């Protein structure tokens, strides 16, 4: 872009990004450092100016640092948070120009070509950046030059674009061993390097050195890659007159849903959790949350699911702002059109079931709608799992080597003795007599799981058919004699 014009690049270096981030949230007087565990020792990851003045430096062991500076306040570093903070700063820097890219883990690069006059010239723009960053509590060093490499050099090593040739060779973004080797050869400054013949340098250090040099001097191109904005799945609407009727809110919601769903469709995403914020004229706001049983993006399906949540909204003197956000999204591929399947009679389409689960979920909670999943265990009560239907897929694969009861309950003791099922017994206030007993089926506890209920050890299960009709599942514990009823067939 801007072929034939001079490009102007600003490089911003945040020398204390990590500690500035922490100190912004919680200011500390005096020396402060962030520690990072490398191998078995804690070392300094980032530190503030006060700590640097006491003689501490990066990479120092925390134990040494504490002995140098007993009043050092420290805290573990969070590199992920730091990366997030840098992305925030990148977004902020878009106020100056649209071409903002990341420079390593602690810098930004801005292509301000043609944008500086909007801020009253380059000097005024840099002063504005410096002032705003200082007010935000972020230490920054700025470099302005005609190429990205030169801007980086100026930001890190000071000086200006005119004095570039007098900067040390380390300002070329070279690996440390190359820098050391160049210094041994007496090539200490960029100017020395630029003046020396290129062919021997390339033979000795490889093409990379010359590429870096050309990039710095502006002979080789190095574009700034702006980062794509992550998609925002939210829409909002401000109303000229406050509304209060449920039908009006529904109509407004429909107009919010349509663009949101279009946005989801272009990104091939489906909403899993939606949050509708309604702001009233008296500045109070209410939220309606909708959790969906399956990712979806059809406005016509989502709208009726909101109905129950909207019933509870207190409109007060009226609602004048609405914001709809898809808080949680999931990948959802475009559906394959299958005319044959949808035409099959007798089966409700699976979306209808998902909608029903969502509606039931809004009343009793989505985690209370469950389905059975098979589990690998011969312990009867652990042979299956109950998982929320909205967050699991159906699985078959249940196996029953022998008949199992339809209902299981906590073992209920019986007054009986001996290893054979009792001829008559009393259970739940009923006197029952034995008709036929099938068994025993021995089930041993799983020794690798500590289970309170299996403290009595082995169980010999019997299928007991009583003359009264009830079919019970009873067990006898030979290691600690006792009889229990655990389930009922039929």
């Amino acid at each position, binding site marked *: 872009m801007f072929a034939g014009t001079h490009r102007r690049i600003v490089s911003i270096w945040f020398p204390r990004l990590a500690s500035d981030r922490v100190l912004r949230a919680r200011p500390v007087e005096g020396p402060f450092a962030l520690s990072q565990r490398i191998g078995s020792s804690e070392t300094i990851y980032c530190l503030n100016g006060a700590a640097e003045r006491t003689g501490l430096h990066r990479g120092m062991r925390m134990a040494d640092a504490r002995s140098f500076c007993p009043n050092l306040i420290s805290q573990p570093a969070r590199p992920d948070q730091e990366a997030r903070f840098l992305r925030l700063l990148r977004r902020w820097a878009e106020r100056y120009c649209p071409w903002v890219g990341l420079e390593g883990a602690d810098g930004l690069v801005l292509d301000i070509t043609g944008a500086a006059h909007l801020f009253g010239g380059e000097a005024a723009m840099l002063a504005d950046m410096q002032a705003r960053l200082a007010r935000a509590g972020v230490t920054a060093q700025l470099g302005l030059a005609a190429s990205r490499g030169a801007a980086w050099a100026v930001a890190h090593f000071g000086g200006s674009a005119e004095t570039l040739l007098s900067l040390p060779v380390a300002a070329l973004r070279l690996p440390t061993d190359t820098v050391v080797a160049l210094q041994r050869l007496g090539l200490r400054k960029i100017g020395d390097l630029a003046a020396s013949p290129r062919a021997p340098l390339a033979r000795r250090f490889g093409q990379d050195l010359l590429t870096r040099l050309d990039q710095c001097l502006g002979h080789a191109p190095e574009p700034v890659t702006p980062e794509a904005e992550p998609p925002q799945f939210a829409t909002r609407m401000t109303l000229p007159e406050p509304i209060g009727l449920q039908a009006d809110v529904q109509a407004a919601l429909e107009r919010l849903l349509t663009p949101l769903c279009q946005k989801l469709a272009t990104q091939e995403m489906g909403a899993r959790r939606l949050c509708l914020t309604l702001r009233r004229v008296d500045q109070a706001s209410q939220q309606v949350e909708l959790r969906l049983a399956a990712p979806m993006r059809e406005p016509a399906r989502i709208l009726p699911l909101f109905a129950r949540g909207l019933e509870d909204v207190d409109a007060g003197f009226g609602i004048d702002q609405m914001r709809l956000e898809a808080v949680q999204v999931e990948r959802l591929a475009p559906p394959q059109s299958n005319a044959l399947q949808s035409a099959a009679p*007798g*089966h*409700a389409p699976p979306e*209808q*079931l998902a*909608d*029903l*689960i969502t*509606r*039931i979920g809004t*009343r*009793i909670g989505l985690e*209370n*709608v*469950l*389905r*059975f999943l*098979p589990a690998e265990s011969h312990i*009867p*009560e652990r*042979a*299956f799992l*109950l998982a929320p*239907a909205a967050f699991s897929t*159906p*699985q*078959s694969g*249940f*196996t*029953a080597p022998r*008949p*199992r*009861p*339809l*209902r*299981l*309950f*906590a073992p209920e003791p019986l007054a009986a003795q001996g290893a054979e099922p009792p001829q008559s017994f009393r259970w739940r206030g009923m006197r029952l007599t034995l*008709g*036929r007993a*099938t068994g025993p089926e021995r089930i041993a506890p799983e020794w690798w799981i500590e289970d309170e209920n299996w403290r009595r050890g082995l169980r010999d299960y019997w*299928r007991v*058919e*009583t*003359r*009264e*009709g*009830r*079919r019970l599942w009873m067990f006898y514990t030979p290691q600690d004699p006792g009889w229990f009823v655990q*389930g*009922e*067939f*039929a």
Partner: protein
Amino acid sequence: MASSFAACLAAAVQGPVLWLRESWQGDTLNPVGFLPVLDPVRVLLAHPANQTDALAVAEEALKDGAVALVVLEITRPLDLREGRRLQLAAGTGGTIGLCLIPEGMGSNAAETRWRATPVFDPKHEDSTLMRWEIIKNKMGTFGAWNVCWNAQAHRLDLVSPAGE
């Protein structure tokens, strides 16, 4: 008892089954026990906190028609209005609703009421012999049958005419 009646009915319909029971109840349904009768994959379980929620969910599911059968285990009798609402919802959605009731808690709105009791079968081992009596019927007459689930053929066998 009644759970096997519900399971046999679920096997006879096509599509998913919603089984509603309040969350405080101590015993659990065992999907492995369902295996000879129906595939537990078809069963969706909902655990409402109280019977009011259970009735509301049942009405919603009956009206919607996405599930083929709604089984509702109740712990207190339905009043006239609740029973009628469920019956209207079932009519709208074309869904079968089955209420598993303790003895004597039937609703006036029900189309039919059945009593299902297991019966001891002296002849066959591993028998699933049951006696099904229809004790209320708005559209027809009463009757009683002795039935037995045939796991191989996957259907109900009528064992012998009830001796009455």
